[in-house]
């Protein structure tokens, strides 16, 4: 039995009232709330072990280094990477993607191609546009279908020997679509291309196994998985990480520096210049422990029930249109519009009722252009949400409709 009330008791923010009403938080795809275990870990870090890592010979530095490296090991185990040095701490997915795109610069030239999906977040588009500009490589796009899934029918034409990198999200933030990444990874490897999976929206809902997926890179944002903002990680296969150019220069990432030449440190430090977000990394480990303690099978089952309930309820609203695939091909995201209602108006009125949803293009303008809409209203749920909150949302939509139409 999934005891949602016990779980909610771990999240202090959820007990808050907003504008005199119980907070209903359905903007989880933007960022998740944090359990007290994570909040306490951050406080505890500063109260007891704060010191710079990998540098000091002193006691505190040793402990904070150990804790930071233990978090790396927690992440390694969580995603089933072969080596802990294949886990690079980052500030989030955006950082991870930029790190890889920049690292590939010496490996690409104007005869090469980069392939991304039509469902990408801007942060999995723009870094590749930079890479294309700098190397002369061409950026190509896997098109999408009316049901909000990728159209793989033309994959054999757009994925060729010229393709050097393929970057797609595991799950779309705008629609919740679960993409067929295994198929894409296998096809990309058949032509020798490296594959980056943007796991920002997948990591909150499932446990990725990077070896089973056989992806070359997998990026995650800590803040979306109950961990501190500004934490995150990139998984990269050792062979690619060794070939790539470091992203930033600085302390920590070097072996030897003279004014003539610098040799780089071994993995993962080659990609971790400067003092990192130490408490963020440690908090990320605590967050993964927290989620694994509940269990991703339980989390996924609860979120699927919430998704099915919300989908049925929202579909039943007169004039509602939900974008994206049916509930068996997506995570707990309902991205929708009400006929004749601008998403901004609906979002603003729901806000007055204490209900937090996201409205707009969700940093995925190409998807909105595809549907020829200014944006959608997106209710994104996590395991700590309740069926009662979905009822409150649906009542809120009905009330807003009455006011607006």
């Amino acid at each position, binding site marked *: 039995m999934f005891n949602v009330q016990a779980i909610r008791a771990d999240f202090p923010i959820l007990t808050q009232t907003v504008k005199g009403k119980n907070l209903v938080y359905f903007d989880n795809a933007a960022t998740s709330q944090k359990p007290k275990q994570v909040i306490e870990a951050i406080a505890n870090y500063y109260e007891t072990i704060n010191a710079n890592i990998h540098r000091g010979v002193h006691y505190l530095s040793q402990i904070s280094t150990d804790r930071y490296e233990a978090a790396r090991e927690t992440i390694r185990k969580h995603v089933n990477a072969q080596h802990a040095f294949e886990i690079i701490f980052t500030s989030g997915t955006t950082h991870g993607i930029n790190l890889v795109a920049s690292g590939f610069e010496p490996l690409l030239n104007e005869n090469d191609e980069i392939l991304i999906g039509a469902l990408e977040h801007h942060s999995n588009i723009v870094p590749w546009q930079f890479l294309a500009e700098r190397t002369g490589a061409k950026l190509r796009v896997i098109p999408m279908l009316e049901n909000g899934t990728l159209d793989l029918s033309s994959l054999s034409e757009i994925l060729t020997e010229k393709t050097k990198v393929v970057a797609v999200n595991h799950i779309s933030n705008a629609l919740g679509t679960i993409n067929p990444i295994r198929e894409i990874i296998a096809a990309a490897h058949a032509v020798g291309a490296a594959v980056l999976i943007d796991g920002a929206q997948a990591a909150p809902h499932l446990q990725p196994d990077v070896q089973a997926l056989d992806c070359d890179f997998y990026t995650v944002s800590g803040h979306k998985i109950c961990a501190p903002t500004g934490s995150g990680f990139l998984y990269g296969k050792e062979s690619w990480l060794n070939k790539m150019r470091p992203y930033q220069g600085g302390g920590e990432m070097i072996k030897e520096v003279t004014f003539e030449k610098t040799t780089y440190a071994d993995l993962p430090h080659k990609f971790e210049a400067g003092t990192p977000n130490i408490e963020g990394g440690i908090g990320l480990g605590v967050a993964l422990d927290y989620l694994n303690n509940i269990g991703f099978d339980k989390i996924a089952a609860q979120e699927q029930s919430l998704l099915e309930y919300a989908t049925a309820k929202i579909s039943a609203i007169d004039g509602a249109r939900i974008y994206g695939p049916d509930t068996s091909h997506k995570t707990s995201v309902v991205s929708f519009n009400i006929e004749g209602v*601008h998403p*901004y108006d609906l979002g603003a*009125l729901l806000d*007055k009722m204490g209900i937090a949803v996201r409205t707009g293009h969700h940093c995925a303008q190409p998807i909105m252009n595809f549907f020829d809409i200014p944006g959608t209203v997106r209710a994104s749920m996590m395991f700590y949400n309740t069926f009662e909150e979905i009822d409150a949302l649906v009542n809120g939509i009905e009330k807003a409709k009455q*006011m607006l139409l």
Partner: protein
Amino acid sequence: MSISAIQEEIVAEFELFDPENWDERYQYVIDLGKSLPLIDAKYKTDENIIKGCQSKVWLHADYEGGKVVYSADSDAILTKGLIAILIRSFSHQAPKDILEAKTDFIDRIGLKEHLSPTRANGLVSMVKQIKMYALAFSSKSEQQA
């Protein structure tokens, strides 16, 4: 009527609503949005568009007898209702007065959050654009004088 007098009038109208009850205020703004005389279709061009990320705003200005006359539209109705309020306070006024006018009356009618740069609904840019037009017309009228 002066801009500040009009703004006081708007504030007085909103004071009739129950301050504890957001619905009434919002319903009023929504209804204003529904009744706003639309901008002439020929001015609803890409040139006149103010991209606000979440909602779009179109703004047009004419200069008639020393006064600036604004017309505007938006694809979102709350934005449109706020436009109606802003236009009521700024339109048919002299450029100099428009340039000196403030918008803090929006705070007093409990709609401040909609005139915030982080809302990305185009209204902040629209106020800027209203002032730009006033500035352009005032320098034009000085040249003619």
